[in-house]
């Protein structure tokens, strides 16, 4: 049997006066998916979530939730729950009443309400806090209460609006794991907004990358990471981000010859055997070549793999060396950009010296110089 999509958005537009905030948004989400909307500030991701929730009226288009058209329904009638960035707890009510508020409004019997609140509190490990007021809780505890309020009603769809952005770095990682665990145990369908691409990568079953009110790419974290559709997605996702270097490329039989100019005048010459040459425009031309930092390693560490024809070495001048514990990052001036190479932690390298860098071309991306579109 065909499962009904939990969320369908059909050519949604949202304008404020003359400003188009969301342009032609279309997406579908299946039950149990963890969909993360990610993009820089002002890309419209929070507005999109607000439209799904019904707190913002849309200009045109349609929104369906669990097979029903909800385009013009009130938030309360959409069978959804939302976790707000500021938690938005009711300060005058105890934790128990905060969590049970939705059930209280729906006039659920006292005993049943109590039991459900207790179950959710157990799941979120806040059973001992039920009698407290929000003011007496830490940031992480408030976050759990806000999630509890959403979970207790067992709605069709959960909306999370940057739920971790008010927490300190350490707690954020803990709560991220917690949210993932809750998703795994409950199988809930979640739409999650964040500007943090690491959160997006770790949590999502699918990622929606947005920019200027337009969806750039929808895909699994692997798809987004390995085959970004344009230079913006390539640059935005991943930390450090993908190196986008201007290079001369030319078809050379069944391979592609890449020549990346370097600041010291000695260009790096590489041959790509993996990409069919027809993908690139005929003749010589400049394109953006995209390589993740982990595809640029120190040759000394790669001994066995050097037989692989996708992995080629070239001597590069290291501009800056940044040890980061598990890895050492080296900045190399390539193709007019500061490219970052990810070397092993114990690599014996110095800034200002030349080192053999191994380039792994199996996951190379090419983008058009002007439009930034993937070739």
């Amino acid at each position, binding site marked *: 049997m065909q499962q009904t999509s939990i969320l369908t958005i059909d050519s949604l537009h949202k304008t404020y006066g003359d400003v188009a905030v969301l342009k032609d948004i279309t997406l579908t989400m299946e039950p149990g998916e963890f969909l993360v909307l990610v993009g820089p500030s002002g890309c419209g991701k929070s507005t999109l979530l607000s439209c799904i929730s019904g707190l913002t009226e849309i200009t045109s288009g349609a929104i369906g939730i669990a097979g029903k058209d909800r385009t013009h329904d009130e*938030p309360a009638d959409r069978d959804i729950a939302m976790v*707000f960035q500021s938690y938005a707890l*009711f300060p005058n009510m105890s934790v128990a009443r905060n969590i049970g508020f939705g059930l209280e409004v*729906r006039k659920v019997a006292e005993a049943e309400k109590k039991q459900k609140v207790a179950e959710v509190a157990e799941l979120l490990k806040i059973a001992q806090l039920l009698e407290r007021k929000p003011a007496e*809780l830490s940031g992480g505890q408030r976050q759990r209460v806000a999630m509890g309020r959403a979970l207790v009603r067992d709605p069709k769809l959960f909306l999370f609006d940057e739920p971790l952005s008010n927490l300190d770095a350490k707690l954020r990682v803990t709560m991220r794991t917690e949210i993932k665990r809750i998703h795994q145990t409950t199988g809930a369908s979640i739409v999650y907004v964040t500007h943090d691409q690491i959160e997006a990568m770790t949590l999502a079953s699918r990622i929606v990358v947005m920019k200027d009110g337009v969806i750039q790419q929808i895909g699994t974290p692997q798809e987004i990471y390995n085959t970004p559709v344009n230079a913006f997605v390539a640059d935005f996702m991943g930390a450090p981000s993908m190196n986008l270097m201007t290079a001369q490329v030319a078809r050379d039989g069944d391979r592609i010859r890449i020549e990346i100019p370097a600041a010291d005048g000695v260009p790096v010459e590489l041959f790509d055997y993996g990409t069919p040459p027809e993908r690139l425009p005929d003749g010589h031309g400049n394109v953006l070549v995209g390589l993740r930092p982990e595809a640029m390693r120190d040759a000394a560490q790669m001994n066995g793999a050097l037989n692989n024809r996708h992995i080629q070495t070239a001597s590069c001048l290291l501009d800056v060396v940044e040890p980061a514990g598990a890895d050492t990052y080296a900045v190399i001036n390539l193709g007019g950009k500061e490219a970052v190479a990810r070397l092993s932690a114990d690599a014996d390298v110095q800034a200002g010296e030349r080192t053999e860098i191994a380039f792994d071309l199996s996951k190379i991306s090419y983008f058009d110089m002007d439009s930034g579109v993937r070739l």
Partner: protein
Amino acid sequence: MRRSLSQTLVLYGCAALLAVFTLAPLLWLVVMSISAPTDLTEVPLRWIPSQVDFSRYASLLSLEGGNGERFLSALRNSLLTAGGATAAALLLAIPAAYAFSRRRASMVLLFAFLATIMMPPITYILPLYATFSTFGMLNHTITLVIVYTAMLLPFATWLMKANIDVLPLEVEQAAFMEGASTPYTIREVVLPLALPAIAATAMLSFLVAWDEFFYALIFTNDLSAKTLPVAIADFSAGRVTDYGVIASVGVLATLPPAILAIAFQKFIVSGLVAGSVKG
């Protein structure tokens, strides 16, 4: 930061001056109320009473004799009028303020409301008098309640709107999300958060109604409806003006609003919003 001795002296001197300036009339009122009648008419004035005399308070608070009856019925009327008008004004102002603050009700309407209190009361007296007279409503407490409610409403609405404006919107959105209706959200979520604002609005409204003189003077004419300000004026309008009695009535009339202010103080000071959003 440490202050030098001279700075401290100047600081305390200024504070003392301010205290004397604001409290001296009140103090003199209390002294007058317990001085013997002869002390008050002496020239030069006797600042310290020759004997302490509480007899006026006793007569004002007993139902025996004219003074007591006049004062106690005026006190009752004032409490009913000011209390009733404050309650009615708040009951209407809160939903109105919510509509202006969160439901984009027209601001023009609010400014039109506010414009009504910018007109001097004298302009309203004639039409109001004619209307109430037609319906036989002169000299009734309920009439004053109606007039005062209309007088308090614009200000109370504006004050409440300003206070609802600054409450976190997301908390209300969360309530709507959970399925709560607007009245339920106002009652269970907005009002508890706005309690300090409500207390402040109630207190200010009560004070305005408590001190109102002009409408009360025109619309009431006997013990059944006269309020304290009118009664105080009556005490001074007799054949012999007893300053001591007027002072005693003044002191007693100050007590209810003062008690109200003390009782509401904790609401006004405490920040109830703490803990709702990130903190």
